[in-house]
């Protein structure tokens, strides 16, 4: 996925050794549990399929009852009961897989993450919603889900990483519509470079379309010298000088490169309260571990997980956040 920086290559080389020495020994105890959980998962999945067929059968009967609109009470009752049971079975199917994933993550992530530094993973914590709103990076939303949450220190910088999914549900008469606002990874790093105002980088034409009302009139558009950058992104700030202090010509180049590296046109960043929050859109489920249908010794899932972490942490190097001058 990423990245061909010198440091990333060094990390890859070291991780191979670390995987064999530290991670593989920690995995053996999970294999039996995986097999048991997989069987349980298959049972729940089979029950779901059977209940699905039963529900469909009763649904068919109620829809084709003769005469029309004269549904037999027994058929309807069976439909309701089978449907409720189907929902319960589906819930347990999903829960079985998720519980195993969390169990493995809880046990293995500590070892895995210590390769990168002092990291903590939490299945329950969330990126604070107030900070997401304050970052002003997104259009308004009323549904917020998050999956994995990591925090710790990397290269002397405090960070928070979380997978988030923001949606907006609107009601139009009796019907409700839900549309996605943002799905991807949110990364917050503390900044060494001191600043006091707020500056936003959004993909082109996003700001004036979506965020103007949210932030108010104190934010002004910042026209930078880089024509290519101006075409790709909109920059707004409440301090024209500070915006340029943060977005130096060197940072501008790095940010353009970040867009290339992640192949994400809609990459956004917000400088606020001594931190930078970077939002990288991504449609797939990241930081996955504990796949029931893959052996615990399957190195591929760790390779993928490692690359995902490397990609996210490379933001520090790619944007030069670990130096005060961000060069």
């Amino acid at each position, binding site marked *: 996925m990423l990245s061909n920086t010198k440091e990333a290559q060094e990390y890859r080389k070291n991780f191979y050794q670390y995987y064999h020495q530290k991670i593989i020994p920690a995995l053996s105890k999970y294999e039996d549990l995986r097999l048991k959980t997989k069987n349980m998962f298959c049972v729940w999945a089979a029950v779901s399929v059977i209940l699905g067929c039963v529900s469909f059968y009763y649904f068919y009967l109620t829809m084709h009852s003769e005469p029309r609109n004269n549904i037999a009470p027994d058929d309807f009752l069976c439909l309701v009961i089978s449907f409720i049971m189907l929902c319960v079975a589906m819930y347990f199917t999903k829960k079985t897989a998720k519980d195993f994933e969390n169990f493995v993550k809880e046990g293995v992530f500590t070892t895995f993450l210590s390769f990168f530094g002092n990291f903590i993973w939490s299945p329950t914590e969330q990126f604070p919603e107030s900070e997401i709103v304050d970052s002003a990076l997104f259009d308004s939303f009323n549904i917020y889900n998050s999956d994995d949450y990591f925090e710790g220190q990397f290269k002397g910088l405090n960070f928070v990483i979380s997978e988030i999914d923001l949606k907006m549900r609107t009601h139009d008469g009796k019907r409700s519509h839900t549309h996605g606002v943002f799905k991807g990874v949110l990364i917050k790093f503390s900044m060494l470079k001191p600043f006091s105002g707020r500056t936003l980088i959004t993909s082109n034409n996003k700001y004036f379309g979506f965020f103007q009302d949210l932030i108010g009139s104190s934010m002004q558009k910042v*026209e*930078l*010298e880089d024509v290519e950058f101006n075409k790709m992104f909109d920059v707004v700030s409440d301090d*024209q*000088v*500070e915006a*340029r202090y943060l977005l130096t010509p060197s940072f501008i180049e790095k940010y353009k490169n970040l867009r290339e590296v992640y192949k994400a046109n809609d990459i956004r960043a917000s400088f606020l309260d001594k931190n930078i929050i970077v939002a990288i859109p991504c449609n797939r489920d990241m930081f996955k571990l504990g796949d029931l249908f893959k052996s615990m010794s399957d190195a591929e899932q760790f390779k993928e997980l490692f690359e995902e972490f490397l990609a996210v942490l490379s933001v520090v190097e790619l944007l030069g956040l670990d130096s*005060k*001058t961000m060069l």
Partner: protein
Amino acid sequence: MNNTDLIFLIIVGGLSILLYVVYVGLILKKNKVKEAFASIDVQLKKRYDLMPNILMIANKFMEHERGLIEDVTKLRTQAVNMKSDFSNMEEKIKLENELQTKLGQLMVSVENYPQLKSNETMVQAMQTFAETEEHIAAARRFYNAAVLDLNNAVEIFPSSFFASMIGVSSLPFFEVENEQQREAINANDYFSK
């Protein structure tokens, strides 16, 4: 009122609105340049305030750079005393460029004085100084962006026509005069080695 009068009124009304819009645009751009120029001044003030501390410490250690230190001191005094407004903008820019060149030379010379490099007060002063220099560079970029916007309006028709009527003219950029000045002074470079 006949049709001819109505058309005449519409044309006059349209022209008046156009004139007003162009006028407002020019004034806004001119004020933006003033704002940007003032923001440079704010940052320069920080630099002037910090310079005596640096010069005082440098004076103790850099016995072979007396001439350079004196030059910097002299230029600083001139810069502090110079009134900064639109009328002497070109002079101000020239003086600041000269001062920055000399400061750059002073920073390079620090390399030759290991004792100075390890002096804690100097290290702190230089770090603050580096931050100030970055802010100055940012303020200059803001100023240049505002000047570019104004100069385009002043030189391109139809606003050029109105600009000469209301006395708005092009303004000079804060340009880098030599290669040494091209990169903002980064005092950290001299202390991190």
